[in-house]
């Protein structure tokens, strides 16, 4: 469609994006509110950020979340990349249909079911719940996302470059390391980033699979938020939003630069 949007459509777009972004903007603004009451504007202040950094429990939860996210997303990236390879490159193996189903099903599985089933499994095996179980749980659902991303990357991949490498005498391992890996690396990195965000964000599966000593940030936020709005949580939320915004910006700039570099003839 070529012609530009009419006035009504432009208005719809503005309203639509207002709907998507206004809640986030309001949240950020209110995190700088000096008043303890959410309804009263008490002037700009960094008070809640100060209190946040003295709240040991909250800081602990942030630490737990970051550690779990780092470990889980790394495991998920390794397993997910393997699974993506299997799906994209191996047309036939024993139980491929089951395998495909198991990779795709967690994407649509309600989190309450995933959480419940993992918890019951951990109890059945007799593993103590805590960091380990949390990491296993997060790695399991994240790896499916990684697999889908990597598979998509491999599907749109020109295999002739790999063949050329083989023709030029590269061994399979060398061809993989020098040709395939660099080409699918953006997909793998995107998968890692996605896993990290998913793990950092997960409340339900974490509530089921965690144990004493491993309370994550979303669990902490959820129990505080159930009692209503607190300015401190607004401050945490703002920091998280800021981190994501910067991360996404840096990521997209880096990607654009890398693509521009590749486009240039060397």
């Amino acid at each position, binding site marked *: *469609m070529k012609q530009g949007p009419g006035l009504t459509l432009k208005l719809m777009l503005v309203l639509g994006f207002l709907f*998507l972004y*206004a809640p986030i903007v309001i949240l950020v603004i209110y995190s700088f509110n000096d008043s303890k009451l959410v309804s009263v504007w008490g002037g700009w202040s960094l008070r809640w950020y100060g209190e946040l950094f003295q709240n040991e429990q909250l800081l602990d939860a942030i630490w737990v979340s970051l550690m779990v996210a780092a470990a889980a997303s790394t495991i998920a990236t390794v*397993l997910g990349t393997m699974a993506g390879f299997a799906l994209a490159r191996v047309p036939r193996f024993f139980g491929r249909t089951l*395998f495909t189903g198991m990779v795709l099903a967690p994407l649509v599985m*309600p989190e309450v079911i995933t959480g419940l089933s993992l918890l019951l499994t951990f*109890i059945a095996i007799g593993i103590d719940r805590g960091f380990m179980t949390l990491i296993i749980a997060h790695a*399991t659902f994240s790896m499916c996302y990684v697999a889908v991303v990597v598979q998509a990357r491999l599907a749109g991949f020109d295999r002739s470059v790999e063949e050329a490498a083989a023709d030029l005498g590269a061994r399979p391992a060398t061809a993989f390391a020098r040709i395939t890996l660099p080409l699918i690396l953006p997909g793998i990195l995107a998968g890692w980033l996605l896993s990290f965000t998913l793990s950092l964000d997960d409340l339900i599966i974490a509530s089921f699979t965690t144990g004493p000593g491993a309370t994550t940030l979303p669990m902490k936020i959820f129990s505080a938020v*159930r009692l209503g709005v607190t300015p401190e949580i607004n401050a945490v939320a703002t920091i998280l939003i800021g981190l994501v915004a910067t991360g996404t910006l840096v990521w997209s700039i880096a990607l654009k630069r890398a693509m521009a570099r590749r486009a240039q003839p060397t």
Partner: protein
Amino acid sequence: MGWSRRITILLPYLWLLAFFLAPFLIVLKISFSEAAIAQPPYTPVWDSIDAAIQHLSTIEFYNYEFLFEDPLYVNSYLNSLRIAAVSTIIALFVGYPIAYGIARCGTAWRGALLALVILPFWTSFLIRVYAWIGILSTEGVLNGALQWIGLTSEPIPLYPSEIAVYIGIVYSYLPFMILPLYATLEKLDPSLLEASADLGARPFTAFLRVTLPLSLPGILAGSFLVFIPAVGEFVIPELLGGSSTQMIGSTLYSEFFQNRDWPLASAVAVLLLLVLVVPIVIFQRYARREGAV
């Protein structure tokens, strides 16, 4: 098949068998057992293959019968389906004009606008839902603004309410609706609209008879992508809804953590999955045919 290739398949395969399929079978098994006070709070259904064979003839549907007898469970199932369906329809009406608008923008704008649609995805889901409490509560931003303009003198009770749950679901899953809609609308051939205009169709008629039918695949994909996660939603009804908006996810959660009735919670999980299997299968069939997703 080389060794490296075998390991590439085997490792994720075994992981998924151990932490996805086996857990689900365990839930299935526990859902057929009776609640016991002992730790763990369920009676083992079978301990050996012998017992298993014996058991198959005397499998207990006790938990499932209970679910259908107690109106609490039936109601929360119906609530889930109703709330998810209504939210999906609202999301369609909100998302369609946005997707349509983006598709009609110049290529330079499209990329930026699509990025803006996806960006909120990367920020915490929990925080985005939480943000609405501050807006919808009686002392919240929205009521403050409405009273300031003079539209109401009394604050409107919007939180907690079923309306708040709809807003939360539409807000959280709107990108799922917009993206597939955009994908079909973007491919739409403008000459078809020109042809209908030449044949005398007014813009609205042309939209109804040309654009809408052609965007049906996007409408279906988007609707399923909103409906499926909305049915099992836990956080949104828990934070924004009241007791009348109890959805099945919350019922499962409280059955497990508060009542500690694991077999019943497992039965709820199995039934929830059964409810979702039909839309999921339809969606996957459709996605495969379209070659998308």
